[in-house]
């Protein structure tokens, strides 16, 4: 690696069910300007732009980076589009970090967005594909059997998912940018309607409008701010949809992705050495599943960390301090929000949802039917 890479600017929109006050270009520009201001930069300072979003069919714009080039000040510059399903926000940030680490560009703006109020995700995710049964159930219907399998294998306490929902929504109350601000009790979550057993309504993520942007720079520009977040490890891993022995509850690609970043960042004991993590949890039960997949808990033990309150702010392994995907889900941006919120923690700029003294944080995203993973580790120290 030729260069160190630091995050020196982070910006995000206020995420809402519908940002009718902003067009799609307005949405991405809002996040980008906030990131530039945070980095004490202007459009002129940016060498290159890397953008990610979920399937083009959501908003009905093919290759939207072409259209959004103007809003992002990209004329005369490289603008690059990444698409790796739900993990795209993470993968996009990884590509941006590699442009800096590889010495290709020194100052890169990366961003991700989704405007679900102008999109139809349920339609776009439920096409009739020849020779395959039409899956009209959306993501919840796909993931519910995996969660049931997790519960059977680990004999998890049945309240685990509801506990995650309560915890993430409590965290979301601390985050003014979050879409949902819900002060819910365990009883209220448990009383919400069952959608896809065991996933209740209150255990699902919302559909949000939102965008997030980061400015990534090389060593010599990092001193523009007093608190850069240094990128210590990155990885993207993919496994096939179909192969004998595939374990979708604890996917090999996720485990390998975590191993890659721990190796690169020199981490041997994740729970001890990582202060907090922003993990892609679109349905509550994925918290314990990813705790195990990322090596924060032994297999079958993740749910105990949740039930013991260890994943709350102030706990041993705080997870999704921002409220996570459970509070905010602009799909294409959800992964980058995890990466950006991890960077905010180590920069000490997470305001009310700051983990005291956080120095090392992990950002995680996954996508598809758990085939695609992206992870990074950021640190306050170079």
């Amino acid at each position, binding site marked *: 690696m030729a260069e160190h890479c630091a995050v020196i600017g982070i910006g995000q929109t206020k995420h809402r069910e519908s940002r009718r006050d902003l067009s799609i270009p307005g949405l991405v520009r809002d996040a980008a300007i906030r990131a530039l201001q945070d980095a004490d930069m202007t459009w002129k300072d940016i060498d290159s732009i890397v953008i990610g979003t979920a399937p083009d069919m959501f908003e009905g714009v093919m290759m939207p980076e072409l259209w959004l080039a103007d809003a992002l000040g990209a004329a005369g510059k490289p603008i*690059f589009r990444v698409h*790796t399903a739900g993990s795209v926000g993470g993968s996009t940030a990884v590509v941006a970090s590699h442009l800096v680490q590889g010495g290709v560009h020194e100052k890169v703006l990366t961003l991700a967005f989704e405007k679900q109020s102008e999109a139809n995700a349920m339609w776009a995710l439920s096409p009739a594909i020849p020779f395959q049964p039409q899956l009209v159930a959306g993501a919840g219907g796909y993931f519910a059997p995996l969660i049931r399998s997790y519960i059977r294998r680990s004999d998890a306490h049945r309240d685990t998912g509801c506990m995650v929902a309560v915890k993430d929504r409590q965290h979301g109350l601390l985050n003014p940018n979050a879409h949902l601000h819900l002060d819910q009790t365990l009883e209220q979550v448990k009383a919400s309607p069952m959608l896809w057993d065991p996933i209740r309504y209150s255990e699902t993520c919302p559909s949000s409008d939102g965008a997030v942007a980061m400015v990534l720079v090389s060593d010599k520009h990092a001193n523009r701010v007093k608190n850069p977040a240094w990128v210590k490890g990155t990885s993207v891993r*993919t496994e*096939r949809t179909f*192969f004998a022995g595939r374990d979708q509850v604890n996917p090999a690609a996720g485990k390998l*992705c975590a191993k890659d970043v721990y190796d690169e960042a020199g981490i041997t004991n994740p729970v001890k050495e990582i202060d907090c993590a922003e993990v892609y949890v679109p349905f509550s039960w994925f918290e314990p599943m990813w705790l195990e997949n990322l090596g924060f808990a032994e297999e079958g033990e993740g749910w105990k960390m949740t039930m013991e309150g260890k994943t709350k702010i102030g706990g041993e392994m705080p997870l999704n301090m921002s409220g996570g995907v459970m509070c905010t889900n602009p799909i294409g941006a959800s992964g980058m929000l995890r990466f950006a919120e991890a960077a905010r923690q180590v920069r000490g700029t997470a305001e009310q949802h700051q983990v005291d003294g956080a120095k090392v944080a992990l950002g995680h995203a996954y996508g598809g039917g758990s085939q695609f993973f992206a992870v990074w580790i950021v640190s306050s120290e170079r």
Partner: protein
Amino acid sequence: MRDVAIVSFSQLPSVKAIDAADEPELVQPVTSDAMKQIGLTQDDIGFTCSGSTDYLPGRPFSFVAAVDGLKACPPIRESHVEMDGAFALYEAWVRLMHGDIDTALVFSFGKSSLGPVPAILNLQNDPYYVQPLGLDAISAAALQAQAMIDARKATERDFAAVVARNRKNAIDNPNAQIKGDFSVDEMLDEPYISSPLRRSFCPPLSDSAAAIVLAAGDRAKELVKRPAWIRGIDHRTEPHALGQRDLTTSQSAKLAAEKAGVGRNKIDVAELHAPFAHQELILKEAMGLGNEVNVNPSGGALAANSLMTAGLIRFGEAANRVLSGDADRAVAHTTNGVCLQHNLVAVLEGE
């Protein structure tokens, strides 16, 4: 920066329709052939990256299915761009700069036969103000061609001459779709599709898939005698709205070519991704390529035009001429967007 080279290339012949082939069936033959040519398997590959668009098959996540054409167990380091495969090659090149891995597999696939491509490409336009007008790809290109005529930069006869040369070149290319001796005068007698574009001035629509293997430094030298070294590679975009650009030139291609170092030395061969005849003229001028440069010996996109793959094939064709020793210095190019909005240029060298 690390030295990175193209060390192998494989493609499916570009044809009007590859019937009854799904993503894995498109991807598996070209990726395995590209690796087999140099004695590699997926286990030897450090990073894999693909380019495709969901709008050709009309389904989300078509690239997810494509991964099943690879040996991705154990899980691989992999990424995807919703762009031509040549941009996947760019991401792989960036990844190799990181220094921890030495090889990358790049592939792309596209079946243009599955839908009305010119109309689908209207979806690249501004959805609020332009998409409702139904500005299909041929009509947009016709505006650009007419702008060239109005600026007295070219005539319809010039457009026809470009087509005749490309399709004559394609005679020697077994993977091309339209080839042969086409008379300029006969082309000028064709009715207009969208004035001033006649049928022959427009590209065919093709189905195809392609794959390239990249290798860094000594690893490239171990794999082939004469790697096609990527000496410069850069991409640039322009304002989106057609009215904000001078359509008779390409500022983005000019800038990308400068950054890639095209003008630093003599160019033997250029493979330009110019789907419409007049676009070749624009690109040649923008990149400073004179008449001594052998442009599109493969026949280019006027002879075979599989969306999402045509750009990666340009890189493969240019690399093959360097790998074989026929050329010492070659340009490879791809474009994306309406009327050449976004351009990627690379310079490949033999030694």
